[in-house]
């Protein structure tokens, strides 16, 4: 097992800069997720760590050893693929044993390692089954067993859950995380799905257009997104964003948005008062907005319920703000609350965490 350190790495394909000056580390034994939309550079980064692609600049270290000059086989990395890439004519046990067979390891070692992997993944009942007719989730467990069996220094997951349906996906998601914790193999996960990254990773690196936007724990990303891109990418429904001008009023601040005036409670804005920020974007998560019945004199943004989405434990109400250019705001409500499509409401902000961004640079203020 090794730590991974990526230092000032670039990847160029002709004139296209797929990865730009990336510096990032994954400590020994942790799982690092590379998260972003397609084309953000996450897969190119994974391929450079694996040794499938060369770096165009910079260096990658496993522990203190530079590896950019090493071919893929010399790096001792194993990969789990999106489409499983199993050998269809082999059984579950034969697929798992395969990497050891081709290396000509002794019989006894192969048997012990394969049995260990089968047990770890709960695949013993399927050991002699052909892989072709297994469910997607079971096939991917075989793929993971095959990657783990030769005790790699680094394990790489390339969108391992994309082909699974909802329940298989959440089941395998938890299972991969548990396996990673149990075996302690340093791992890198590539995904475009923020829920997968948050659920599985110790550290999440958010990328966009080849550039690292933020790296941190799942809670860091949710609580303190460093810019508008991360703010919108993490969380479901996406964070509500209100562009406008900030002005001091009494103890707190008021946001003058296109859709009206919104009072921002004092504790959440304490650090902003007196710093003279005018053009900003205020971000509020759906659980931090509150709905009240509309009255002519009430405070908050006036609007109407556009759509109410039942989600079981809570519901999400989409409010269409009345003013011209008015945004649609997602507000989390209790299932028992009365709001229906068409109701006239006012939206206010609860006295909790707000996110304020510079409207030009997008950076967190």
């Amino acid at each position: 097992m090794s730590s991974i350190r990526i230092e000032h790495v670039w990847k160029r394909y002709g004139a296209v800069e797929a990865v730009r000056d990336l510096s990032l580390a994954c400590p020994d034994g942790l799982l690092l997720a590379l998260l972003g939309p397609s084309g953000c550079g996450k897969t190119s980064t994974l391929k450079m760590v694996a040794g499938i692609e060369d770096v165009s600049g910079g260096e990658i270290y496993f522990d203190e050893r530079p590896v950019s000059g090493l071919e893929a086989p010399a790096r001792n990395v194993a990969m789990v693929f999106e489409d499983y890439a199993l050998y269809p004519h082999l059984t579950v046990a034969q697929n798992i044993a395969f990497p050891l067979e081709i290396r000509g390891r002794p019989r006894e070692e192969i048997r012990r390692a394969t049995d260990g992997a089968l047990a770890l993944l709960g695949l013993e009942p399927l050991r002699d089954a052909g892989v072709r007719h297994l469910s997607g989730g079971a096939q991917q467990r075989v793929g993971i067993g095959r990657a783990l069996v030769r005790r790699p220094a680094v394990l790489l997951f390339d969108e391992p859950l994309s082909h699974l349906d909802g329940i298989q996906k959440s089941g395998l998601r938890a299972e991969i995380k548990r396996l990673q914790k149990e075996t302690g193999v340093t791992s890198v996960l590539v995904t475009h799905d923020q829920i997968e990254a948050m659920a599985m990773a110790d550290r999440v690196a958010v990328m966009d257009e080849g550039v690292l936007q933020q790296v941190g724990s799942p809670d860091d990303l949710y609580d303190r997104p460093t810019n508008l891109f991360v703010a919108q990418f993490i969380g479901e429904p996406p964070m509500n964003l209100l562009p406008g001008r900030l002005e001091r009023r009494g103890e707190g601040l008021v946001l003058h948005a296109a859709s009206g005036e919104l009072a921002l409670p004092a504790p959440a804005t304490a650090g902003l008062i007196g710093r003279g920020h005018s053009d900003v974007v205020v971000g509020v998560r759906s659980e931090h907005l509150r709905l009240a019945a509309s009255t002519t004199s009430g405070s908050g943004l006036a609007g109407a319920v556009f759509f109410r989405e039942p989600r079981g434990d809570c519901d999400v109400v989409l409010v269409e703000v009345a003013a011209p250019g008015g945004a649609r705001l997602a507000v989390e409500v209790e299932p028992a609350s009365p709001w229906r499509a068409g109701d006239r409401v006012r939206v206010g902000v609860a006295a909790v965490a707000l996110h304020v961004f510079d409207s030009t640079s997008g950076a967190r203020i």
Partner: protein
Amino acid sequence: MLALQGVERRWGDTLALAAVDLAVGPGEILGITGPSGAGKSTLCRIVAGVQPPSRGEVYLDGAPVTAVPPERRRVAIMFESYALYPHLSVFDNVAFPLRASGAPRLGREAIGERVRELLRFVELAHLEQRRPAALSGGQRQRVALSRALVQESRTYVLDEPLSHLDAKLRHTLRGAIRRRLAGGPTPTLWTSPDALEVLAVADRVAVLVAGRVRQVGTPAEIYRRPAHVDVARLVGDPPLNLLEGTLEAGAGGLRFRHRAFSLPLPRALAARVGAGGPRDRVLLGLRPAELRPGSGVVSGAAGRVWVWEPLGRYGILSVRLGEDLVRLKVERGMRFETGEPVTVDLDAAEPLLFDGVEGGAL
């Protein structure tokens, strides 16, 4: 008004749909969810008339239409496979049903207006001259959706209308389509393997498993009172926990006994299942959001943390209880390490019970 009566479909010995009875009123959206292979698409194709049922009857506005060919039914179907015309532009694909023989005659301008309104609605107005081959999967899906919604039909059949769209667009379009259809004159069928999607958009939801309708109800009924374990396994985020155990009569009434804990049944539930007395095989359903980490006053179960998944707003804590895995939906601000001991507090749980053999709710 759309109605299905005793609709059945066999493929040789395989029963793809078993005696389906459903009714959808004007302006109502009936969601259909179930795992892949449950029969959702077969049902859609039978309503549209592109596939005959083996038995049973489809009614539109009270009249049987099973013998009416698809082009004369005036059912607008959006196929899961999109079925776009590759040689036609986006505009002409959407206009196609308006120009078809048998459609109400519309002038060139009226057609243009209708088509463009739909393309704006699905955010594709800028691509009206493109051919399908030059579109992404999600864009093709929106063309197919427009082509269904552009028609004035007697029923809309939307087979997985949003499955290939990104999360943000899917979220916006759900609300927009619902607003467009709800309260209008036309019934709608809307299928998705994602139960959360149909529970979000539909007035009522039918849960289809292996060709059988396991439950039809409002989203709240499906969430709160799943009629069968098959339904319980599909709904909720994460889905209901299901634990096998026995029912025993004790001093305080009926108790559910699991290898790792014992839970007194609330009075109303005990009264409902009490007539049957003790049972040696039942499934207890526990909602993830009603379980807490920490020892309960009335009842708790000791286990170990299997895995902790922080998701921002909340986290999912999976706990190993004996042979079972129980999931808790935990408010944020907590942290757990794999392997550490933890107690699951059951005090706030409103348990559900299912027959351990047949799977029906007790």
